[in-house]
């Protein structure tokens, strides 16, 4: 049996189940307790677990991220929620300089089993400081694992894996997708970190995406199907480590690839995928790998800027037709 759950509720189930299972797991962040979470992901958790395990912090991202790192080094398993990953920039010192490096610095004596989670990416007209993606930033850093999800079943299974993981995991969600629904299996399950999922099988082109851009990719695949183009669509789910095996396998079948990535184009997820594909599937490619990213700019507030900035199905269809050498 499966149930239809919103993404936010699937995430909550993962946290609740892991907190029931392991007393060392706790949740900490801004407005996570009495306010039920800024986006209601932790609704009701204070009531079940009490203020020692569901903890409201002051607005002090660097401080509470560091407290999380210390607690993780000393045997606990913190889940640190950022109201948005945009605010986690203040905490990057603790994430990048400490969580990611503790194991290396201590030559394996201290690990840092911590989950940093929150929404990443644009969420409407929120302007420059509240619209950024962080998969590429953190995916660049050795020592971290990076997960970015949109499907509720994946979200639950991957968050449970992240909480149980003995390394630090940065877990990227989406304000917009919190209300999106999907089937979630009943009963206990986890989803492995580091494995991509083929969401739609196809033969002509591989479209790779993750997080809420999956909707754009799938919509483009629908539109292409009407024109007789069969697109395979892959949800990365994990950014680091990158499951390039699944990508290479698909490209060996389709011989063409388009990456749909809300990150900025330079030095990011899409660049890395293009590198891996040219390295491992060079002889199978019938066209260069193309990508559809957000614009190489800061995002302004007006709807005009948002529409111009973000990937959309039209841009993806155009890229697919380009790699297929079909006239648009």
């Amino acid at each position: 049996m499966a149930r239809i759950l919103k993404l936010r509720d699937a995430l909550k189930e993962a946290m609740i189940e892991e907190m029931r299972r392991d007393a060392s797991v706790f949740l900490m962040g801004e407005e996570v307790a009495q306010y039920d979470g800024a986006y209601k992901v932790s609704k009701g958790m204070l009531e079940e677990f009490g203020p020692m395990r569901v903890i409201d912090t002051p607005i002090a991202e660097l401080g509470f991220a560091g407290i999380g790192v210390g607690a993780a080094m000393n045997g606990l398993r913190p889940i640190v929620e950022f109201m948005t990953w945009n605010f986690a920039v203040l905490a990057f010192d603790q994430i990048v300089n400490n969580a990611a490096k503790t194991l290396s610095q201590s030559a394996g004596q201290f690990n840092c089993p911590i989950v940093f989670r929150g929404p990443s990416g644009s969420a409407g007209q929120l302007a420059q400081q509240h619209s950024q993606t962080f998969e590429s930033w953190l995916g660049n850093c050795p020592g971290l694992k990076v997960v970015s999800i949109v499907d509720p079943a994946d979200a639950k299974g991957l968050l449970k894996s992240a909480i149980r993981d003995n390394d630090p995991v940065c877990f990227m969600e989406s304000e917009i997708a919190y209300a999106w629904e999907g089937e979630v299996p009943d009963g206990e399950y986890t989803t492995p970190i580091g494995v991509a999922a083929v969401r739609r099988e196809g033969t002509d082109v591989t479209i790779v995406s993750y997080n809420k851009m999956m909707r754009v990719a799938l919509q483009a695949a629908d539109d292409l199907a009407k024109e007789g183009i069969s697109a395979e669509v892959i949800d990365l789910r994990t950014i680091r480590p990158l499951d390039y095996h699944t990508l290479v396998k698909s490209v060996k079948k389709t011989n063409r690839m388009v990456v749909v990535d809300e990150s900025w184009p330079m030095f990011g997820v899409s660049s890395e995928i293009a590198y891996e594909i040219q390295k491992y599937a060079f002889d199978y490619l019938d066209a260069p790998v193309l990508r559809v990213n957000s614009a190489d700019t800061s995002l302004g507030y007006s709807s005009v800027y948002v529409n111009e900035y973000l990937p959309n199905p039209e841009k993806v269809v155009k890229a697919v037709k380009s790699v297929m050498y079909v006239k648009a």
Partner: protein
Amino acid sequence: MDLTTDILDSIVTTNAGPSSEQQSSDSKKSKSKAKSKEKFDKAMYLNWFETMFRIRKFEEKTLEAYGNQKIRGFCHVYIGQEAIAAGMLSALRTDDAVVTAYRQHGIALSRGMSSKECMAELYGKATGCVKGKGGSMHFFSAEHRFFGGNGIVGAQIPIGTGIAFAEKYRGTDKLCVTMFGDGAARQGALYEAYNMAMTWKLPVLYIVENNGYAMGTSVERTSNVVDMYKIGSSFDMPSEAVNGMDPQSVHEAIARAAEHIRAGKGPYFLEIKTYRYKGHSVSDPGNYRSKEEVKAYMEIDPVKVIEKRIIEQKIASETEIEELKDKIKLEMDEAVAFAESSPLPDASWLYTDNYVQEDYPYMKD
């Protein structure tokens, strides 16, 4: 009314003197209700009322337009906190710099930015103060020395310190007012900035607009120290608590602080106690506050209080006040009409203002 009395008592604990030693001891804190009221002239009172009424009406139009989905994104209104903007306007010079956070419409208006350019910005129009690029959280005006509009809690505390640094560096007598909310006061950046500002005696006036709540978290739940002005004492920074529901108290405190700063004595810190009548943002119903608390604060609504004082003390006639109100209402109707009829930005402007270099080679595929 008992709660209102308690509130009045708690917020009217203004300290008088500028020396930090004086503020470091609670016992020396004067509880007299602003005994030393200066005599302000009619123009000053009308200026305060006009500024506050303009902000109130602007924010009411903002909420209306937001309800009609003309304004989108995060939107934090200033309703309840207007006395701070009004008292600050009259106590500062127009060439002083101001930087604040995202609850900024009122501050921007009080610095001289027009209702039209601000409303058009909220509408995301080309005629907005930042061409529809910033929206509600990011107004800027180089002309009015308004440095934003920052969306990251506490980020502007060191930035305002740096703006002040530049004034000292150039040898001017201008200061920078660096404003933030009670939530931001718990960010580490404050402590780093305060330390350097005091060490280097920078011309910066720090103002925490303490409206009691960091989003849904009350001040009491964020720290063991709830009297925020005391944060200054560990830096030996002169610090005072101020009644932020009265522009006169705000004016007096800021004037005192500005004099100290312009004399080259370094930073000054004011905890201005205020209240926001609405939620943290338009999407926040504010369920963490009791109806009684909100109602009690409504009794000391700064816009009404100052209007009443003007009438009762016969500073100006009711007719004059009504004329002023009509003028502001007309201004707001015109601002909304301007925003409605203005064109949207051009999509190509996404690629402007990212670099000063005009031919910067963007990665476009």
